[in-house]
């Protein structure tokens, strides 16, 4: 495992390039780790490499990966959004109640979810950009506020009997195309768009400039406030979509939906090689990071270890991923 993580990094450092490479060393290393993990798991257990298990992994990480795409953009600008779990709860409860009580159709439900998410993200973005408060304080505050809003709408009871209007995004057979969950198709589509945007669009490159040095970016003509509002709103939109995935085939929406989600998303982003200080990171890495988190969760279950150990492994993977990145960064500087 150690060799797969360091060797691409070393070979990559020899060739100096001005333009960013399509795939970074960290992503290659992560893909290597994933490949090794999958290989070992398919040898050790006979249930890992089954269609249903892989479908299950892809479906369960879809909300984390989807929000992670927006979170990558946020963290690249040196921000953070810890309110995503609460905003997911708001979007989910509103959509669930609309589906059940008003019987709205799927497009309307999606539109409402995206709209609610966008408004909540917009609030975060405006306060961060124009209030000039550190993003972590703003979103700690809105974490509480949005959770309050969701609990008020829940009205002290969970939503039961949600119809299966959104089952094409759910975990059942109706939620799959070509054997892959539609939720994961959505992740890949959104991921590809945002990856292209952050890599090639001028305003996408501005995100990295803001994360590197917001003052310098502003002097260079970057509209810092607008970009910030945009990335937080994007995250909100994706949270709305993720809420639809978590409702999926309907049934039950519990009041604690989304609790602790923010930490899982941040873990996936960070394992994917995005620097929490800002200015560096890609959507591709985040998707791989989310897959790693999903694989670890599935592995612990299949190996019949106590499920509480999952968190320990996620913690260790965060340390390894960031540690390897720190070493590479130090080498790059000393060279």
């Amino acid at each position, binding site marked *: 495992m150690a060799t797969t993580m360091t060797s691409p990094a070393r070979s990559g450092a020899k060739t100096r390039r001005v333009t960013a490479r399509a795939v970074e060393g960290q992503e290659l290393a992560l893909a290597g780790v994933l490949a090794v993990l999958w290989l070992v798991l398919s040898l050790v257990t006979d249930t890992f490499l089954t269609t249903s298990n892989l479908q299950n992994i892809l479906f369960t990480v879809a909300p984390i990966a989807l929000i992670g795409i927006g979170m990558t953009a946020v963290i690249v600008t040196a921000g953070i959004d810890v309110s995503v779990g609460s905003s997911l709860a708001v979007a989910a409860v509103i959509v669930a109640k609309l589906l059940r009580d008003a019987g709205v159709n799927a497009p309307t439900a999606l539109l409402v979810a995206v709209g609610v998410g966008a408004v909540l993200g917009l609030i975060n973005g405006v306060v961060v950009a124009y209030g000039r408060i550190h993003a972590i*304080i703003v979103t700690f505050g809105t974490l*509480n506020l949005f959770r309050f809003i969701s609990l008020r709408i829940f009205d002290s009871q969970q939503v039961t009997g949600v119809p299966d209007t959104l089952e094409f995004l759910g975990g059942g057979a109706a939620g799959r195309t070509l054997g892959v969950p539609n939720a994961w198709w959505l992740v890949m589509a959104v991921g590809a768009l945002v990856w292209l945007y952050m890599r090639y669009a001028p305003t996408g490159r501005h995100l990295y400039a803001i994360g590197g040095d917001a003052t310098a970016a502003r002097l260079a003509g970057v509209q810092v406030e607008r970009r910030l509002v945009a990335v937080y709103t994007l995250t909100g939109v994706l949270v709305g979509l993720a809420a639809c995935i978590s409702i999926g085939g309907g049934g039950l929406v519990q009041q604690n939906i989304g609790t602790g989600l923010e930490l899982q998303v941040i873990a996936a982003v960070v394992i994917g090689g995005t620097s929490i200080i800002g200015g560096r990171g890609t959507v591709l890495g985040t998707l791989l990071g989310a897959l790693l988190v999903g694989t670890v969760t599935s592995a612990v279950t299949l190996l019949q270890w106590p499920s509480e150990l999952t968190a320990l492994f996620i913690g260790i993977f965060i340390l390894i991923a960031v*540690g390897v990145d*720190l070493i590479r960064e130090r080498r790059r500087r000393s060279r």
Partner: protein
Amino acid sequence: MSHSVTDKPTQAPTGADSAPSQAPRRRIGVREVLTFLLTDRVALLVVLLAVLLVWMNILDTGGYLIAPYDLAYLFTSLEMAVPLCILALAELIVIVSGRGGIDLSVGAMVSLAGMAFGFMVGEWGWPLLPAVAACLVVGAVLGAINGFLVAYLGFPALIATLATYYAYSSLALVSNDNAPISTQPIQDLNSLTDPVALPFGLPSVPMQVFTFALPTVLLVWLLMNRTSYGRKLYAVGTNDTAARFANLSVSWVRFRAYLLSGLLSGVTAVVTVAQYASARPDAGTVGNGMALPAITIAVLGGVAIAGGIGRVGGVVIAALLVTWLNAGILLAFIGSEGSQYQLFALGVVLIASALLNTYMVRRRGGT
């Protein structure tokens, strides 16, 4: 609350927002008083606290509350303030140490140290004092791991403590198969949190306020304001390059900040186990956990997230404000509505105080 008054003059040079209290005041008019209140965090919090108490009393006399909001109730609700206040002080130390300092793992450390304490007292039959000491050591070791990662290996604090949050909370859950330890010796610990009768007809106060909270507050205040370590911590947090040129060992200073945060989590673990009469593996991580409220209170108390600024008095009053606000809200609403409005109040107070702070700093032309 009394010591917040004493630490005002000594703390003045470190807090940018306390500068006007030093400036020579020519004449004291409404404007000056207002500026002072809005720029001095401790003064603002005291005013807010007074407003809260008066407001709740008006509601009380008007008969809008489901139980009297009196001194006895306020003193009893202090038991909620004790863990919050101690952990907020831990966040104060870590955030002041600068370079994005933060400790997301305090709740997980409370869980894990609490489980260790539970095993020592409840399963292995250790006497109380060695067990408490060992629990503090466990907390300090967990904090030292954070400190090593952040100060010596250069991990961003948010990441390092996110990772150890996962690791510690997982270990706490696994340690006893997700079950709490509540054997007889542990249940007997509940006597540590008995109410203590006060003289002069004052209502009784939970014992841990005197045995844990006040000594901790006093020691942290002394550490931050009366020791060279405290001075070094503010120096490192304000500008670590300058601190390095001043021949300070930046890594060692920062390392100890995280170690102290772990130590204070160990203290909280003892209080929490005694309070619940049970060592719960998810004591500090259930729901939103203990870390988020602790960070919120630290920020509300005027700790600047960028480091180098923050006062013990502000954090303690912020903890009191949040506790009594929550206690009041519980009386003003029926059933689970109360706990929901607590979230609302916490969010609004946090963002409003941060906005006010930025606005005042900008208006005064500071930055």
